Every structure is written in C-alpha cells, then in structure tokens.
C-alpha cells in the first residue's frame, strides 16, 4: 500500500474523525439510549474518543499505526467506562495490537478487524441479533473480508463494507434486546435502533472517509 502520510498519522486522523462523528451525533445517541437504557451512550463515547484522540496524538509521533490505535483503545476504555467503554475500547485496542508493523493492507486490516470483533463477542457474550453493536460489526467485517479476499485495496474495501454495516445497524430497530441494560426492557426496545450499533456505524463511516482521503493507492 502506498501512502503519502505516515500510517501513524492516518491512524490518528481516524481517531480524530471518529470523535468528530460522535460529537456530531451525541444528542441522537443520548436519545436512542434513553428509550430503553440510561441515556449516557453519547456522553460515554464522546468521553472515550476525547481521551483517545489525546493519546493518539502523543503516540503518533513515535509509533506505528498499530501502536497509535492500541494506545487509543486502552485510553478509550479507561476514560469512557460503561458497557461501551469496555467493548469499544477493547475493540479498538485489539485492532491496534493486531496491526503488525507498517504493512497496512486490506488483508492485515481484515485480520485485525476479526480479532477486534472476536474480543467484543467474547467479552460481551452477545450474538448476532441480540441488538448490540455486533449487529453492525459482524456484517461489516464479513463484507470487508470478502472485498479483501478479492484483492480490493484498503480504502475501497472499507467503503464497500459500509452498506452492510448500515443495514446491520438498521436491522437493530426490529430487534428485542437480549444483552446490556436494555435487555431488561425487552419489548420496550422494539422500534428503536440500538445506540451502540449506531455509534459504531458512525465511527466506521468516519474512518472510511479518512482512508478514502488519505490512503492514495
């Protein structure tokens, strides 16, 4: 892969773009989480990414993309708290620590995304259809993997996987929660999109924009 900027810088931009996307949607996320949860999802994601951005910037000077991202994930976790703090933090951290060296191809990224996904699934013990962020992440990772297997470069592979992620996110509207706080409310969560599935989609979309801009093939 051929890039103009250092991969650590691009990684930092990805984290920054994620923060911007969350801040833009903070009220919407708060609202989604208040229907059947405790309304703090927007604030928690913002808290996490604010701290993650600071750490990414510090790490970016000396480190690799992987180091930037894993540091950002650790810091996200520490600062955010809550279910999403643990899960998203773990996701970002595992992606970072599985991005070996500076070889950021769509295949290595796919490997990292799968490790991230596996860690979220094992930490949260949720499955597809449980109305969680997994409903965005699983289809995204699958679609990304197919593109990567077909040899699509990173930025395009990422773009090509977003529609699947969006469909996954939207599918949570019709689901009844069975994990996380809103699980208690069962039917009450019906009709409302899952906040975690929504925020993680915004993050994926923001990262896609940075990759499209900055990873010139």
């Amino acid at each position, binding site marked *: 892969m051929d890039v103009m900027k250092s991969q650590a810088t691009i990684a930092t931009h990805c984290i920054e773009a994620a923060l911007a996307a969350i801040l833009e949607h903070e009220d919407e996320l708060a609202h989604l989480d*208040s229907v059947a949860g405790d309304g*703090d999802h927007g*604030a928690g994601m913002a808290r996490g990414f604010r701290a993650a951005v600071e750490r990414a910037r510090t790490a970016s000077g000396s480190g690799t993309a992987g180091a930037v991202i894993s540091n950002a994930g650790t810091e996200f976790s*520490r600062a955010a708290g809550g*279910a999403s703090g643990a899960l998203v933090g773990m996701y970002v951290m595992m992606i970072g620590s599985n991005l070996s060296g500076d070889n950021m191809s769509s295949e290595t990224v796919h490997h990292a995304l799968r490790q991230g996904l596996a860690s979220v699934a094992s930490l*949260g013990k949720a499955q597809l259809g449980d109305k969680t962020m997994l409903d965005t992440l699983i289809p995204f990772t699958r679609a990304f993997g197919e593109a990567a297997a077909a040899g699509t470069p990173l930025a395009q592979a990422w773009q090509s996987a977003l529609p699947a992620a969006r469909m996954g996110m939207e599918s949570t509207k019709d689901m009844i929660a069975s994990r996380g*706080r809103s699980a*208690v409310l069962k039917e009450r969560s019906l009709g409302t999109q899952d906040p975690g599935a929504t925020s993680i989609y915004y993050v994926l979309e923001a990262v896609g924009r940075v990759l499209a801009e900055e990873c010139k093939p």
Partner: protein
Amino acid sequence: MTRIWNNPIEFKDQLIDGFVAAYGRIIERIPDASGVRVKGGPVADKVAVLIGGGSGHYPLFCGLVGKGLAMGAVMGDIFASPSGEEIYRCTKAVDAGKGVVYGYGNYSGDVMNFSMGEMRAKMDGHDVRQVVISDDVASSPEFDQRRGIAGDFFVFKALGASAWRGDSLDTVHAFGQHANQRTRSFGVAFGGCTVPGRTEPLFTVDPGKMELGLGLHGEPGVETSEMLPGKDIARMMVDRLLADAPQAAGSRALVLLNGLGSTKYEELFVLYSDLYKRLAAEGIEVYKPIVDELGTSLNMAGCSLTLMWLDDDLQTLFDAPSESAAWTNM
C-alpha cells in the same frame, strides 16, 4: 432535573472533589484514580471490600466507605460503570494483602469492567473475589440475570461487617453471596431524571400512570400501570417480593423503603404505614426497618422496597457498628 453544574464534562471530577473535601474526616481520595478509600489507607490484616458503579446513585457508592463498611469505592461517570483500568487502580489502592472482594450491581457494563479490572489485578498478584448483586425481581425471572438496585446496601453492609471483624477472604465472599441470595427488591417510578447538561428527562411518565420495575439508572420500568393510592402500591410491592422470596429463608427480614430522589420522606412514611401492616399480615417479622434514600437515581421520582431475609449471621453483620458519610450505626 440536574441544575447545579459548571461543565457537564467535569461533573464527575468535581463531585469527587467536593465529596472528598466534605468527608475528609472519613475517607481520602485514591491517588491517580476515580475513587476513594478509608482515611489513612487500607487497614492491615483486613480483607478490603471495594464497591463501585456509575455515579448518580449517592450514597451509592462513595457514601458507604468507612469503618465497618467498604474499604473503598470506585466511581464511574453519571450512570456509567467505572472502567477496568480505574477498578484495577483502586484494587491496588485498597488491598492490604488479605485480598479484595468486589461488590457491585449486576449491569453488563459493570460486569465487564470489574472483570477486566480483576483480570489485571490478578496478574499483579491480588487475590480478588466478586459479589454481583441481583436483587431486582422485576428485571428477570432468573435470579442471576437480575439487576442490582437498592439491595446493594444490605449486601455491602454484610460484606463490610464481615471484612472489618477480620474474616478471611473466602468467608467475606461467602457472606456477600449469601446476603445477595437472600435479598429481593421491587421498585416503582413516577418520573424520570435528567442528567447534567441535558434538559430532557431520560423518560417521562404520563400523568396518572406509574412505571413498575424501575431501573436505578433512569431506565424506565418494565411495565406501565395506573397510578395507585399508597395502600395499593404497598400491597403490590409486598406481593411481588413475597412471590419471589428465597427458599426456606424464614420470616425475619431487614426492610429498606428507599426513595429514588424526588419521592420524599413524608411520602415514604405514608407508604410505610401501609407496608408494615401488609408485611405483618404476611407473617414477616421486620427487623430494624429503614425508610431513607440509600440508592438514588439523581432526581428520579419513585421508590423501591427491599427485603433481606435474615439468619443469625446476617443479623449480627447488620448490627455491627459502622461509620461512613451516609450510614452510621452504633
């Protein structure tokens, strides 16, 4: 709604700062972490009980740190579990070498974060046990799937008393589990709370209605009912709890009628005037009832009833003296 704040982002840090400044005679800030511990640091030869969870539930959790109660509390943001990292740091700061028992309410965020904290603390050689409190009968038919609400208080009291009298890690942990097994709560809500910096409540309750099975984090209830007079609320609360009483637990019980924030003491006493008759009619022998705010949800309107069925051990633990910012008994 929450009206006093400077900057919502700094709300938690300022609340810890204010709490530590106010109750510095009892507790101290844990350096470099979102938490407090007993003044002077962990006490030699005692198991440390570390409690915690999101903020917005005072006196849960920091108000229950002190002699005879928790050794420390780790404090998350409003309604957000503290992170695994914070829990890890606080574990190190309270362990006197005798091990640590975590006590917290059963929410998936807390379970994940406390488990991550435990994992890291264990890697550093700390001996850690967990008591995950699940008293809310409304939240699930399965006991260990249930949320923790105001019943936290009774379990913390048992854990703290056991730890402070010098019990071993296994014993403290076992009493905590036992206390949780014998604790049941059921709550109702009349109105939602508003978190700092927001202007809309997390949920609203239509006039003339109430929510059954409230969550302690501003989650709405699991079902909606017509608003009832006090005596009917009392009947319903007792019925729901007794339908789910622990097996062969006898008839002696601690009782906590807990206000969520805006449902005030006078109303709670009026409700209690019906509750105690109802409990007596059902053969419950009430021991040292409490009508107070021991687990709030900011300014949410509502209340919950908790029973902890006693045996001699649990009664002794409850009676043991304790002193904290929000609960002192001699």
